[in-house]
């Protein structure tokens, strides 16, 4: 076998190895966790834990703790109840707080994990629902927090943690209802606009809610759509800030809030019914945005040009009206031509030709009656 053949075979072998690598998501540094046993029928379970459990039911699962940093780290792994954060966002209670809900139902096999750089480990846990738990959705968290000695610098010392939401639904009559509380706006110092849509979940389960703020120009053409799908938790108010950067040209705009959600049987966390969504709308907000300085300068120049054109047009109209009212008839004699007539009446020959509709080569025949300026 010659050298060329060897190269080809080695290349093919390399290709074979490459083709058999299982490619996961792109790696970034940091730490965190993922559910160890996701449900292939519900893609949402790749990032959060979702269970439907009856009272006094037990479920075993695991959380994969991941250290993607460049150094060995020790993590505290613990469960807490959920707590509403401002704006209705999902948040988790602190380790030091008393846990009375989902956080107290979860028992982790380990509370501390030490992982070398780039390694991960599954921490098993058991979740047991109590006897008298209410129907509907209950939320909690499993958190991974780096174990660090307490910082000593004065001021606010910050520590970071990553949490995975744990959703436990107790079967029963699921109430799914969203109402729009308000839709307002405010202007920031830099001229941009902040929209504040606010909705309330009046049901007993969390609802994935599509929130959309559509801003249009004065005449209705769409300018920008903002929003997205956000979970609104049981009994909570969800509110968001959508910032509209100051439009370059400024002017009048109008914005509408549309909220839609799945209110049908079969809908749940990570599950859609496939039926028509319930849609809510708010009254339209009109607002004026002052143009940016550059746009203002351009707009001023355009306005000045338009004013100048208007002035010229008005001047022209008035002049033609004066010509029609004041110019007198003159009968052309044989020796006269348009330039001599213009000189005689002290007027431009072009104006004389225009007023009398004399076409090139601008010959005025003897005997023709034309209009000329009055002689004072």
């Amino acid at each position, binding site marked *: 076998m010659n050298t060329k053949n060897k190269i080809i075979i080695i290349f093919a*072998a390399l290709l074979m190895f490459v*083709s058999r690598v299982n490619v996961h998501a792109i790696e970034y540094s940091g730490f965190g966790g*993922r559910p160890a046993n996701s449900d292939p029928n519900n893609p949402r379970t790749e990032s959060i834990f979702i269970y439907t459990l009856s009272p006094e039911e037990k479920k075993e699962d695991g959380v994969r703790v991941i250290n993607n940093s460049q150094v060995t780290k020790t993590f505290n792994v613990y469960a807490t109840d959920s707590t509403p954060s401002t704006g209705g966002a999902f948040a988790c209670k*602190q380790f030091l707080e008393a846990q009375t809900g989902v956080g107290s139902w979860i028992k982790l096999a380990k509370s501390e994990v030490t992982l070398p750089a780039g390694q991960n480990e599954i921490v098993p846990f058991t979740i047991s629902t109590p006897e008298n738990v209410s129907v509907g959705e209950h939320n909690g968290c499993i958190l991974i927090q780096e174990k660090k000695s307490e910082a000593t610098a*004065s001021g606010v010392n910050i520590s970071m943690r990553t949490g995975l939401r744990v959703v436990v639904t107790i079967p029963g009559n699921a109430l799914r209802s969203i109402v729009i509380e308000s839709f307002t706006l405010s202007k920031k110092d830099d001229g941009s606009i902040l929209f504040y849509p606010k909705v309330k979940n009046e049901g007993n389960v969390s609802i994935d809610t599509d929130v959309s703020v559509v801003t249009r120009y004065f005449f209705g053409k769409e300018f920008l759509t903002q929003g*997205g799908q956000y979970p609104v938790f049981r009994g909570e108010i969800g509110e968001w800030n*959508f910032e509209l950067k100051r439009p370059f040209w400024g002017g009048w705009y109008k914005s509408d809030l549309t909220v839609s959600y799945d209110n049908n049987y079969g809908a749940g966390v990570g599950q859609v019914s496939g039926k028509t969504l319930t849609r809510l709308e708010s009254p339209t907000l009109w607002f004026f945005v002052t143009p940016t300085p550059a746009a203002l300068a351009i707009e001023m120049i355009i306005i000045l040009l338009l004013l100048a054109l208007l002035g010229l047009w008005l001047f022209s109209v008035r002049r033609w009206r004066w010509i029609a009212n004041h110019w007198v008839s003159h009968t052309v004699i044989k020796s006269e031509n348009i330039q001599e007539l213009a000189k005689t009446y002290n007027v431009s020959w072009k104006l004389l030709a225009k007023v009398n509709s004399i076409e090139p080569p601008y010959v005025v025949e003897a005997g023709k009656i034309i209009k000329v300026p009055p002689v004072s």
Partner: protein
Amino acid sequence: MNIFYLNLKEYFLRYFNISLAFLIILSLSISGTVVVLASATSSFTQVINPGTLSVDIVNASYESVASPSVALSTATFSFSCQTSTGTFGTNTERIYITNPDAADSGWAVSLAAASPTSTWVGTGSTFDFNDPTNSGCSDSGSDSDSVGGQMTVNPASSTLAVGNCASCSTGNVSLGSQSAFSEVAPVVNSITIITGAASSDDIGDWRLTGVSISQKIPAEQKAASDYTLSLTLSIVAS
């Protein structure tokens, strides 16, 4: 005739060998059989770990800051209630969020104290971070401490930008509203800094700077150079 025969043989041996090698490798590759080639070539392995949703404080080179902190403006002892201010998220301590395909249905970053009963602790004195009484200047008497003081956080004033990701956007990522911690109803133990909707980038990274923080300091608060408060920045897939 002989010359033609020899050329044909050479041609057959050369290209038959190459084709045969490809076929063998291809069939073994498809069937999952491990192939060991009797050659000096090393085998290459590559492991790519699954990424995780995370929040961190990083410097301008996106290196993790070991002990991040926020220094509020220095106050002087006063017989009146006063306000100290600071900025959470600076060019050297940026709030950095990464979602490497780990939370496709959205996420939220929130700020909370290590405990709702925490206080600013300095040498020989404390004051509160979550007492709204008298605009943060007095004690409500509703918790175990007897000190006033309240912290307000304003993420709406901050600047959001894409991090290292060249193809990502800040679309469907929204900033939280200005809020103050409160130990009395309506209780506010956690303040939302930023949220990503389900339709935000599934693979993306973002940096946030300029979150305004202000702290009401009660009148006659004792002077100390070491007042500290521990806050936790959490990111949760929702």
